[in-house]
């Protein structure tokens, strides 16, 4: 059965604006509160994690090049700079995951009046768990 679409209005002034100007406006922090902060962090961590996925697969390709290449990478992974990178990465994963649960609740209409508290909960919990994880990495040496 062919369905005829109902009329959908389009904002012409938005359509005329170049795409990069519209994308840049997501970062417009003028007069924003927690909800926007949660959104922009979600977007940034999401983009970062996509890049990390590619990086991770590149690193795995050393597996194909045999034990020497792999062990050289592991030695690199123990450097302080790398542990700092791990910290950022772990925070990104935790925040994206915990705020993801918040977005699922809010997206189904649950808890919108508590959204700011939920954001701070997810944010603080991510920082605490990141600190725990980095401590564990350092102790494992």
């Amino acid at each position, binding site marked *: 059965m062919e369905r005829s679409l109902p009329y959908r209005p389009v904002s012409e002034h*938005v*359509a005329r604006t170049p*795409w990069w100007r*519209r*994308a840049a406006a*997501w970062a417009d922090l003028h007069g924003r509160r927690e909800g926007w902060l949660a959104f922009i962090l979600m*977007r940034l961590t*999401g*983009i970062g*994690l*996509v890049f990390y*996925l590619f990086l991770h*697969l590149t690193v*795995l*390709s050393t*597996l*194909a090049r*045999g*034990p020497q290449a*792999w*062990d050289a990478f*592991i030695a690199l992974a123990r450097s302080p700079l790398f542990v700092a990178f791990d910290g950022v990465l772990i925070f990104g*994963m935790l925040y994206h*995951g915990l705020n*993801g*649960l918040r*977005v*699922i609740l809010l*997206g189904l209409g649950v808890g919108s009046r508590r959204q700011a508290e939920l954001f701070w909960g997810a944010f603080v919990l991510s920082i605490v768990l990141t600190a725990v994880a980095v401590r564990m990495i350092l102790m*494992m040496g």
Partner: protein
Amino acid sequence: MWIWQALSGILLTVLLVVHMVANHFVVEGGLRTYADVIHYLSNPVIFLLETVFLMVVTAHALMGVRAIILDLGISPAADRRLKAALFALGTLIVVYAVWLTGSAVLRA
């Protein structure tokens, strides 16, 4: 779309914990040496689990990329092309990674 992103996200939180625990805590001190990693991956159950994890991660990541591009309001035709391109990219990623780890395990 949103619903798939939500479902794969929930699945990922579980799979990511499994992935992290299995890689870093099951063997004392975590998987470090080449031999450790190969031994770990040569368990078929683990290999399957890691493959499923990789597929869900890839799908979630590329659906996220599409969501961001859709926020810029592209035409239905452009969306169809985008979907095809992202699907091809996702397939490529999964096939490449499975080939990579699979051949390393087989060689060992």
